């Protein structure tokens, strides 16, 4: 089979093909069995048939079909395999798979898993234990040794991680594990990229008592990562890097995404031939660039191709400066209290340790804050003043609040946006005609233009700006009388903002309104951090940030997984590890980007370690070996079906139908035999359901008395005629008009539709199944009543212990049910009074008591003719053959004489039936109704 990539597991079986000629010879001799038919006019047929020769041999095509079938089975038994792969080295007595699952392995993870699977399969065939470790996994993950099945589970559970590989730690663990397994084959499934400590890691791994090394590396590393980004004035620039071995010119597309994941810009980056680094530029307006949250490379499904940008939403450092003495003692009057509460959620607050401005301002400026809030600071000492102005001109945002000190301090052109009048203005005071002023719409030119004006805010005191020609341009918020509430001006690259009120609620209620928070947040968003701080410089500031959005191994922003830990800056710049995967840390108010690749990242290809061990090299590939045994046997079975069809056809199974129908039938039967069965069954089921629904609707549309079909037709006829007679009597005498009596089959019919089921006991009938008795039991417990009639009042023997067969059968039936304690109907039972007053309940025979559930807790009182008690007896037993007395023939005459033949006894039997039926439907209602005359009498009627 050189022309096909086909090999056989058991080539010896192919010798069986030699038997084919013998099979052919046998098949030729065996014609299909004819259909045998008796045919009287044979002699006439004989004349016709003379001319035709009778085929004693199978047709050639049938023989061919069967030969093919035999050949297929022989081939299948020889275990043919298409595309047989080479078996990996199974030398050694253990297998250690060390698999890179860092970010670079994410794009072709499936083929890596397939390769590892194959190695595990080989190990499983050889019965070797497997050590399976992942270099980007948790450092305390279980690595084995496992048996093959568990190793497969671990492999299936493993995922690529969006972090760099940590070969050194994992290799050391594997080496440790291999100390107990000398002579192992170590399979290194690398992602093709070198890491820092590779050399040491490999020497640690291979220095043990390993037997061989299987080196699996990708043929080419084609990942592209984004190493750094910068946002200068003209464009957002992103640096893309690729593996240094990747030398061909290449172009990639980059997309910029906002915080909703919408693509808002895209650009191209071109790698020149041999270049491992290139810079892409997003030339989009500054406002749009501010919305960028991430930049990613199209078509790269890995974490390094995503660069997160946190410039816009990075948490700003805000310095707070106050001169008030009341800090702590009266917190609600502290000038900074409301500012602190408002800004804490979205910014890092920096406060000076010293109240002295000349030391406090430099101390805060040393933290390089984006913004400084000064609460009612009057004069700024010269020592700090220049430094502050310099910071402001370099891009700082200074927010000042007015207050008595500021009002008294006088003008300061450099650190106030507008000229102020000396003093302050009070509105709505005791000596004033004016009212406290509300805030109007925010001016369209200011940064608050899209905020809703706070309608509930009033200002009762403020500092006033000198009216100048440019005052309107500098005003960010106005009072209703047109005086400015917030003014702002730019100073160099920075912004200077003045609130003309105090930061606490004495001058205005603005600081305790929601708008205050919104306004401060807007100002914070305008500010820019002034450089990165040294984390070590400020211990208390190094709070850890909770994971907010993580980059998955596929390069998507996802919610943080269980492994992600808060990002801590305590020990310098945090590294990208499995605990701190790349992503955003913080909250949606402000977050920090934690990016995978450092700015100086270089992707160098991994170098195969120098070792004395024998090395088998392999590449990642899917296992394409196809075991042909199953398909061949399936084909043989299909041919067998075809052969059956052909034999049927030759036997004339289809010939009575038309030719066209025959061929279509054959095709159908061939392809859809299973389907046909299923589809043929489902309508039948639907049909069945339909009819049972109809029966149920019929059963509940009228009140009907039911009887049990015993299977003995004479008893069933009497039951039916009896219940018909009772029904007729009920219609004549009472308001109840039942429908035709219904026969129920205990095994299959639903019983719940009937209030009363009459069950004549037939000793000859088979005992109902346990399931049927269970149905009856459930019916009785759910409120139905079964009237058992043994019809043996006069057939019981005379001695006390004797029982008739019917009674014995009744005992058998009842032994399978939960029967309550019974008693003969007592004289004051409600059954005796439901319609007629009945002392006893005769049927064809009289004398047998009617047994009902004993009313144990019934209350009796002397003045009540009927005992009270709840519920309806679920069971009644009589031997009087009620149905026999009720039964009428077609002409309306009784079918059976009563014993003794007393016409009154029949009337009493009907009355008993009426009482029972009314009792069924009304329960103990009558036990109350018997008092109606007395009640009416008492009411004075």
């Amino acid at each position, binding site marked *: 089979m050189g022309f096909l990539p086909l090999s056989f597991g058991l080539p010896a079986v192919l010798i069986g093909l030699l038997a084919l000629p013998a099979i052919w010879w046998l098949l030729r001799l065996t014609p299909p069995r004819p259909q045998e038919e008796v045919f*009287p006019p044979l002699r006439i047929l004989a004349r016709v048939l003379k001319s*035709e020769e009778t085929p004693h041999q199978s047709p050639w095509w049938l023989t061919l079909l069967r030969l093919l079938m035999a050949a297929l089975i022989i081939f299948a038994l020889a275990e043919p395999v298409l595309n047989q792969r080479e078996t990996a080295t199974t030398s050694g007595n253990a297998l250690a798979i060390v698999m890179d699952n860092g970010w670079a392995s994410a794009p072709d993870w499936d083929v890596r898993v397939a390769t590892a699977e194959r190695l595990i399969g080989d190990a499983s065939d050889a019965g070797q234990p497997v050590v399976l470790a992942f270099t980007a996994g948790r450092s305390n993950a279980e690595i084995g040794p496992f048996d093959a099945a568990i190793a497969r589970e671990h492999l299936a559970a493993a995922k690529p991680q969006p972090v760099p590989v940590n070969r050194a730690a994992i290799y050391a663990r594997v080496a440790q594990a291999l100390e107990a397994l000398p002579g192992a084959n170590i399979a290194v499934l690398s992602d093709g990229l070198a890491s820092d400590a590779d050399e040491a890691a490999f020497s640690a791994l291979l220095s043990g008592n390993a037997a061989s090394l299987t080196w699996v590396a990708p043929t080419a590393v084609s990942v592209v990562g984004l190493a750094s980004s910068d946002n200068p004035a003209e464009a957002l620039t992103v640096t893309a890097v690729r593996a240094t071995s990747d030398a061909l010119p290449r172009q990639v597309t980059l997309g910029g995404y906002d915080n909703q994941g919408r693509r808002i810009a895209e650009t191209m980056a071109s790698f020149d031939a041999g270049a491992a680094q290139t810079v892409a530029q997003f030339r989009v307006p500054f406002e749009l660039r501010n919305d960028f949250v991430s930049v990613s490379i199209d078509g790269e499904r890995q974490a390094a191709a995503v660069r997160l940008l946190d410039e816009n939403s990075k948490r700003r450092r805000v310095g707070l400066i106050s001169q008030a003495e009341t800090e702590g003692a009266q917190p609600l009057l502290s000038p900074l209290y409301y500012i602190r509460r408002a800004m804490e959620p979205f910014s890092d607050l920096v406060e000076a340790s010293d109240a002295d401005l000349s030391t406090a301002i430099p101390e805060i400026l040393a933290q390089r804050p984006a913004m400084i809030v000064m609460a009612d600071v009057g004069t700024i000492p010269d020592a700090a003043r220049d430094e502050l102005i310099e910071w402001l001109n370099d891009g700082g945002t200074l927010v000042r609040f007015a207050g008595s000190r500021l009002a008294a301090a006088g003008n300061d052109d450099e650190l106030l946006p507008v000229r102020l009048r000396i003093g302050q203005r009070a509105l709505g005071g005791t000596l004033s005609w004016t009212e406290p002023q509300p805030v109007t719409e925010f001016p369209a030119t200011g940064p608050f233009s899209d905020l809703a004006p706070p309608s509930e805010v009033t200002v009762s005191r403020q500092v006033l700006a000198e009216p100048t020609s440019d005052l309107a341009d500098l005003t960010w918020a106005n009072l209703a009388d047109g005086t400015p509430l917030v003014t702002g001006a730019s100073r160099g690259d920075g912004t200077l903002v003045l609130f003309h009120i105090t930061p606490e609620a004495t001058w205005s209620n603005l600081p305790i309104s929601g708008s205050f928070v919104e306004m401060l947040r807007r100002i914070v968003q305008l500010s820019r951090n002034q450089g990165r701080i040294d984390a070590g410089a400020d211990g208390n500031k190094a709070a850890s940030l909770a994971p907010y959005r993580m980059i998955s191994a596929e390069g998507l922003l996802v919610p943080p997984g269980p492994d992600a830990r808060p990002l801590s800056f305590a020990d310098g710049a945090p590294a990208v590890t499995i605990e701190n995967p790349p992503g955003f840390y913080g909250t949606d108010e402000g977050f920090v980007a934690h990016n995978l690749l450092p700015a100086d990242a270089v992707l160098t290809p991994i170098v195969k370690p120098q070792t004395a061990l024998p090395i088998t090299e392999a590449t990642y590939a899917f296992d394409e070996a196809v075991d042909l045994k199953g398909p061949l046997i399936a084909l043989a079975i299909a041919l067998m079906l075809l052969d059956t069809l052909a034999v049927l056809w030759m036997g004339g199974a289809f010939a009575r139908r038309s030719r066209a129908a025959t061929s279509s039938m054959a095709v159908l039967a061939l392809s859809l035999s299973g389907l046909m069965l299923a589809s043929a069954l489902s309508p039948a089921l639907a049909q069945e359901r339909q009819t049972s629904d109809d029966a149920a609707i019929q059963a509940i549309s009228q009140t009907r008395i039911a009887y049990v079909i015993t299977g003995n037709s004479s008893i069933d006829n009497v039951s039916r005629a009896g219940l018909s007679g009772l029904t007729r009597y009920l219609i004549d005498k009472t308001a109840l008009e039942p429908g035709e009596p219904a026969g129920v089959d205990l095994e299959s019919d639903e019983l719940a539709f009937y209030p009363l089921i009459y069950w004549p006991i037939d000793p000859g009938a088979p005992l109902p199944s346990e399931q049927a008795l269970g149905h009856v039991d459930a019916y009785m417990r759910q409120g139905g009543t079964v009237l058992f009639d043994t019809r043996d009042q006069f057939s019981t023997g005379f001695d006390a212990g004797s029982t008739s067969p019917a009674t014995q059968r009744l005992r058998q039936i009842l032994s399978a049910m939960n029967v309550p304690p019974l008693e003969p109907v007592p004289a004051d039972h409600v059954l005796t009074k439901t319609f007629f007053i009945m002392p006893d309940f005769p049927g064809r025979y009289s004398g047998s008591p009617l047994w009902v559930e004993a009313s144990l807790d019934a209350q009796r009182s002397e003045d009540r003719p009927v005992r009270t008690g709840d519920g309806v007896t679920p069971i009644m037993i009589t031997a009087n053959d009620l149905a026999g007395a009720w039964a009428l023939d077609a002409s309306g005459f009784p079918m059976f004489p009563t014993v003794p033949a007393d016409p009154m006894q029949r009337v009493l039997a009907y009355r008993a039936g009426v009482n029972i039926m009314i009792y069924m439907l009304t329960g103990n209602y009558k036990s109350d109704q018997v008092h109606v005359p007395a009640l009416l009498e008492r009411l004075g009627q």
Partner: protein
Amino acid sequence: MARIGEAAAHVASRDALARASQRAALIPDLLVEARRVTNTVISGWHGRRRRGIGENFWQFRPYVEGETMSRIDWRRSARDDHIYVRDQEWEAAHTVWLWADQSPSMLYKSRAAHVSKEARALVLVLALAELLSRGGERIAWPGLTDPMTARNGAERIAARLMHAPDLPARPNLLPPRRFSDIILASDFLDPIEETKEWLDTLAQRGVRAHLIEVADPAEESFPYSGRTEFSDPETGAKLTAGRAETLAEEYRLIYNARREELSAWCRKLGWSYTVNHTDRLASEALAKVHLALSADAGIGAV
């Protein structure tokens, strides 16, 4: 695949006891059915309505001189001055021989048919027996009974059939005399020359025969297909056809040709030939045979 045809009841074993019980079970049913079928026909079959020799009163007529005195009805004549003679209704007894084929081939019943050919033939014959005996005809079964006149002729024949020993495959056709009728119900599947030779004795002696061919629909339409092995219930001979459906056309041709020839031969002799299929009603054939029986012998003759 289910077979198309089968032998309804195996009589081939010829076990006497089994046969008797079989007959006992079969014939009363047939008798009832025969009576039912008869009732639908009998409206056209009332007496001779003629004066003649018979048992039933027909009319009183005035005495004509020369008649024998013994015919005078004195009771009637005493009422007035005329003398009356009591006339009886003419009940010319006619002998009709009946015979139904009971050979194994008659047991054949295909899926399309309601009854086996034997059952149909017996029903037809017993129904005719019922009809004829009600009409006062003398009926007989060749080889089984002599001609008899009885109201319960059909029951008698049935009873005799039930207890009969094995009857020959073909009856002795010598007893029927000239002017008598014979009704033969069979499938007439034997080669036509044999049938003709067998019936020729009747023709020679001037017996008028009424042939009822009881045919199964499967025999006529030949619905077989595929590889089929046919076996003859009488001889046990077997024939295997590779593709039975290819034979159908030719077979039907020969089958129908046989019927045509037999029918033509009967017509020539003045006999009637009726075909009854077992998937059709028995009363159809009964009506036809009845018509042929009551028709004048001379009309049918060519």
